[in-house]
């Protein structure tokens, strides 16, 4: 298959269309406005639904409604907009519905900046809204992965009846890279016999709700949801490890910083420093055990966690490592992308302190 040059945001939109997204609801916000732009042109051509909602709150509730009817529904936004959507995401999770949400993260808090950031890690991986739910969070670090993951996300959401979030930073939305529209893993999906599509011969109507009058019922729903989340933790962790087998220092990063670190590794190794990269691809569930096993090995002196935030994933890194090795941190916030040189310096400094 021939490679084609695609921009990140347009890939998000096209991948969703290829995955059979029936409805897209969104509201423009930099740095992801090319997604609704592309959708507004192409969804109608495929006979699908595009609505520019009046706000992010409206958009996520439209996703909720469409998902309840058994349709493949999606929205995309950037940090401030995703914050507005949290109530809706909680309702979607509480109603055990599939949905795909893309967050093209920018600097925060508040309106922050429009430049790339990863400061929504906590919000993405801890649920974000109220209640005991989690969203499955995938973090691509190049455009090919973005194309693959957005397509897969619809199947994953349907398979587990749980919202899936694709978390990228603004840079991945803006960048242009060659990709292949290759087939992605498809799953055997259960029928959506819970969907509100009309009674059609059934005796009782289907009811989609996150409201329970009896706490026993709500507890039962939560226990079922908990079992489902456990199943996701067992089956859906993803990661990539580069040069970790003989590394004295393992850098942990996802998204854009992870690909910058590929350049860092080359440079450090030419200087005689054995460095490796551990890249969580699923942020929730976090690839705890593989990270632990790499870091526990004798060759590893320490870990350097690198993020475009003040340090959020570092909590999961520490939990995974269980205090076995020191964890250092380097991060830039507010929309600044760390440079190769800065990360090299941070790695050398950390190694010096360890000696």
């Amino acid at each position, binding site marked *: 298959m021939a*490679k084609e*040059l695609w921009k990140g945001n347009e890939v998000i939109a096209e991948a969703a269309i290829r995955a059979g997204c029936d409805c897209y609801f969104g509201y423009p916000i*930099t*740095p992801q406005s090319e997604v609704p732009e592309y959708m507004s042109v192409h969804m109608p051509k495929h006979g699908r639904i595009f609505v520019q909602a009046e706000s992010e709150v409206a958009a996520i509730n439209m996703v909720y409604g469409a998902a309840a009817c058994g349709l493949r529904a999606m929205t995309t936004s950037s940090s401030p907009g995703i914050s507005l959507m949290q109530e809706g995401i909680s309702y979607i999770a509480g109603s055990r519905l599939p949905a795909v949400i893309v967050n093209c993260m920018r600097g925060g808090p508040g309106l922050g900046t*429009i*430049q790339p950031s990863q400061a929504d890690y906590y919000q993405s991986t801890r649920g974000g809204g109220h209640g005991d739910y989690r969203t499955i969070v995938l973090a691509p670090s190049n455009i090919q992965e973005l194309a693959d993951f957005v397509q897969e996300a619809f199947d994953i959401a349907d398979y587990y009846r749980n919202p899936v979030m694709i978390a990228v930073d*603004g*840079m991945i939305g*803006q*960048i*242009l*890279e*060659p990709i292949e529209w290759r087939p992605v893993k498809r799953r055997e999906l259960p029928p959506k016999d819970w969907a509100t599509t009309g009674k059609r011969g059934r005796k009782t109507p289907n009811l989609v709700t996150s409201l329970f009058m009896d706490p026993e019922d709500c507890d039962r729903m939560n226990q079922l949801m908990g079992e489902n989340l456990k199943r996701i933790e067992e089956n859906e962790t993803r990661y990539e490890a580069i040069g970790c087998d003989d590394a004295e220092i393992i850098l942990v990063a996802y998204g854009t910083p992870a*690909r*910058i*670190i*590929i*350049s*860092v*590794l*080359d440079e450090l190794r030419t200087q005689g420093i054995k460095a490796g990269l551990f890249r969580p691809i699923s942020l929730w569930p976090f690839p705890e055990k593989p990270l632990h096993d790499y870091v526990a090995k004798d060759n590893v002196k320490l870990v350097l966690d690198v993020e475009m935030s003040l340090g959020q994933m570092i909590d999961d890194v520490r939990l995974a490592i269980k205090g076995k090795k020191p964890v250092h941190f380097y991060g830039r916030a507010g929309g600044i*992308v760390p*440079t*190769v*040189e800065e990360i090299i310096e941070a790695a050398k400094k950390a190694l010096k302190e360890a000696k």
Partner: protein
Amino acid sequence: MMIKLISAGFGGQGALAIGKNLVEAGMREGLEVTWTPSYGPEMRGGTANCSVVLSEKRIGSPVFSSPTDLIALNLPSLNKFAGKVKPGGNIFINSSTVSEKVERSDVNVYYVPCGEIADKVGNPKAVNMVMLGAYIGVSEAVKVETVETIIREMFAGAKEKYIPANIAAFQSGIDFVKQYE
């Protein structure tokens, strides 16, 4: 090969399009490529730039602090990036707009009067095509034929009449830098 290029100019001069043509050509020739635009709360008439990487192996960082090559279509771009170019690197200046000279002696500088050349071939809008030709003439980053094919495809259909003028602008950029050999 590992080219890290910054192409910069006023919005509308075609600095970003130079980068896009390069990565499209690089991809077709089997190279790894990335194109990253700078984006921000830009003003009409302000500066725009993109970072381009062309490489034979997997590209790590798509952005970089010091480019191997710089294309500056206007003065603010030259002022912003000229000092960051790696020693031994190349700076391409649109001398129709920029009269300043580069004071560094550790880089190769090419002064290309893109405006005058574009006027001469009867295509005053094709400043960026002239510069693309000059850049490829020196760097040989991609093949001339690959770019010509892309230009033909870009203007296929209703805009077909623009093909000869754009190819001519591109070719005169290549011809201009031959004097530097």
